[in-house]
């Protein structure tokens, strides 16, 4: 039985909820008990979005506990920093190299943190950090929306699970016209070594 706690964090519009639905379905497919938790309502208005996914023999809480996340999938750099306390010591962070600036850094005095300070905290918190050019890969494939496919590919490699379990779920879940691009994105994510 694969037991794992996942946290996904992004910004409204980045497809955090779909990516976490896919992850939950993969857990079901391999026979795990699965729980998943997220909060709807504000996600469409550019707010921070998180989703917790848990696989195990029998899961009680739908929320991961702080300091107990095995795989933290951060779809945006600032959000990686915001939720980093959830990663367990020795856990893995999959960090998408993408910045979405909050409006408070535009009209106000807030500063978007520098790359180096983000990397430094993330490295300090996790056992392993992957820095993934998900957005760039997706754009090169002609569709910025498949960035999450790249992240899921990289995650599948970290978990040493067969690609088929993942790809079939992804292809069933994404719009049919984007299925092939998502498959390509997944393969790029899976095959490249992103560790830093």
């Amino acid at each position, binding site marked *: 039985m694969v037991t794992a706690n996942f946290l996904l964090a992004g*910004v409204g519009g980045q497809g955090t909820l779909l990516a976490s639905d896919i992850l939950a379905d993969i857990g079901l497919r391999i026979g795990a008990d699965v729980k998943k938790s997220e*909060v709807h309502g504000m996600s469409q*208005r550019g707010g921070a979005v998180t989703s917790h996914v848990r696989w195990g023999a029998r899961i009680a809480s739908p*929320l991961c506990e702080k300091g107990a996340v095995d795989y933290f999938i951060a779809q945006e750099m*600032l959000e990686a920093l915001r939720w*980093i306390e959830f990663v367990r010591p020795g856990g893995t962070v999959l960090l998408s190299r993408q910045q979405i600036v909050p409006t408070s850094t535009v*009209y106000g005095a807030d500063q978007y943190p520098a790359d180096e300070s983000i990397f430094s905290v993330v490295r300090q918190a996790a056992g392993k950090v992957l820095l993934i050019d998900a957005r760039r890969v997706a754009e090169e494939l002609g569709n910025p929306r498949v960035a999450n496919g790249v992240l899921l590919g990289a995650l599948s490699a970290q978990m040493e699970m067969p690609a088929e379990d993942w790809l079939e779920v992804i292809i069933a879940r994404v719009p049919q016209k984007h299925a092939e691009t998502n498959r390509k994105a997944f393969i790029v994510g899976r095959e490249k070594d992103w560790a830093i």
Partner: protein
Amino acid sequence: MMKKLLSGNEALARGAWEAGVEVAAAYPGTPSTEILENVAHYPEIYAEWSANEKVALDIAIGAAYAGKRAMATMKHVGLNVASESLFYVSYTGVNAGLVIVNADDPGLHSSQNEQDNRHYARFAKVPMLEPSDSQEAKDMVGAALDLSEQFDTPVILRTTTRSSHAKSVVALGERKVFPKRPYEKNPQKYVMIPGHAKRRHPVVEARLAQLAEYAETCPFNAMEMGDLSLGIVAAGPSYQYAREVFPHASFLKLGMVWPMPKRLIAEFASRVKRLIVVEELDPFFEENIKIMGIPVEGKTIFPVVDEFSPEVVRQAAYAAGLVGQPPVERAFDKGALPMRPPVLCAGCGHRDVFWILRKMKVTVNSDIGCYALGVMPPLTATDTIGCMGASIGVATGMRRGDLEFPNVAVIGDSTFFHAGMPALANAVYNQTPITTIVVDNRTTGMTGHQGNPASGLSIHRDMHTRVDIEAVVRGMGVEEVHTVDSRDLKGFEESVKQAIKSNKPAVVIAKTPCVFVTSHPREAYQVVTEDCNGCSMCFRIGCPAISKSDVLDEKYKRPKAYIDPLACVGCGLCFDVCAPQAILEGALKQETMLAAHVA
């Protein structure tokens, strides 16, 4: 048996279908909205968005009187709106089963207050069930309807944001069909004039005693014995967190949270050495157990505010010496991180409205909806927000209280029909000179773009009848009425000025079409970088499509503006506010690209 991963809300909808519900009504409200959205997928159930929660509950009550199983769903503050109906239906009872799904919001993910609606069950003397996962959510709908029919009572099914939105595995069943129960005229039961109601009250008290007896053997209440040194009473998501933190303890898990099973609790208490309650929000179980004369601890250990989580429960338990292991210490020096609150969408017409109101320096009595975001920086136009429909009454009161500044009420189209109309009629009747701005974006936006009387769109997205706001307002006797597209900034400002100046009850209907409903006529706008002097005026409209570019203005060394072409939807407010005219209008879209722009 087919198994599926369902959210609590999806499971409640499935449960309604399986349990033979035939009529379901709701007003959208986070975290309850998806229940009715999912119910609407089942053709066997009549489903509707009602104008407000009270109307929704009255409809469900009427359907149950008529003899069909019925459901009304709402968020916790929705039950405040519907509470008067809850209290009379407690007295009348039902004919076919009636379940009221109430979704509380501990942690105020999207509400104006935290409130523990378990109190309503005790207050209205009706039973309440509470699921701890999606399987129970589904099963409890059927159980609630059976109880409703067996005990002739409405039943409240309480969820929280967590149990409504968390997903877990559910075994699906088939739909049961029940013959319609014939309606029989029975004024002593259904007409709550004082003489009848007085005779119903003892019936209600007797029913409550019978329900308390039922609670003792209710299959949703169960002892799970483990280590006897610690016994935990819990329900809902709190039970799941407690299971994580106290894996070896003994549990009394309550699925029927009112009335509470006295003998079962006493027996559990007698078998464990130390009894504690783990419950979010109020000490509801704790106080009721104390009333039974059983020593118990709860809120001396666990917080009374905010949502629980595994770490909140563990931290409190560790501090009280209940667990030996502290939470994993994870503290990092991150500096102050910029927050990322929800913002008005790029192209949102409410931005135009608040941009002008801020400039006019009027006091703004606002309401519940996307336009509540008008309080956020940089617009910060709003002075007061209370609850659905409060804007117009509070604005009236501020006028009567001789406020030193001109003030306006701002209310959305859906909220106007929900609870705004009585307050407007009142202002007309009592001749209070207030200006109400109805920000008509043709949708119930904040909860995910549901239809409402102004849009005319049904829950199935069919076009029903649109209720004309201007006709309603004129029909109420408002003489000073302006209808204006908020994109016409000057026209809008002029309308508000005239409305205030009229010194009469006045209404400005600001057409602010939601970008999810219609599109603006132009493509993305563009900054002409060489003309931009970095004055930051466009930064101050708070548009998420506009950011600081890496290019600095040579004279002032200020960052020039950049418009993200993928995020910009072509509203043109930045163009309107740009003094150096450094923004280029987007090209006009083809006619076919435009939906019914401001119908």
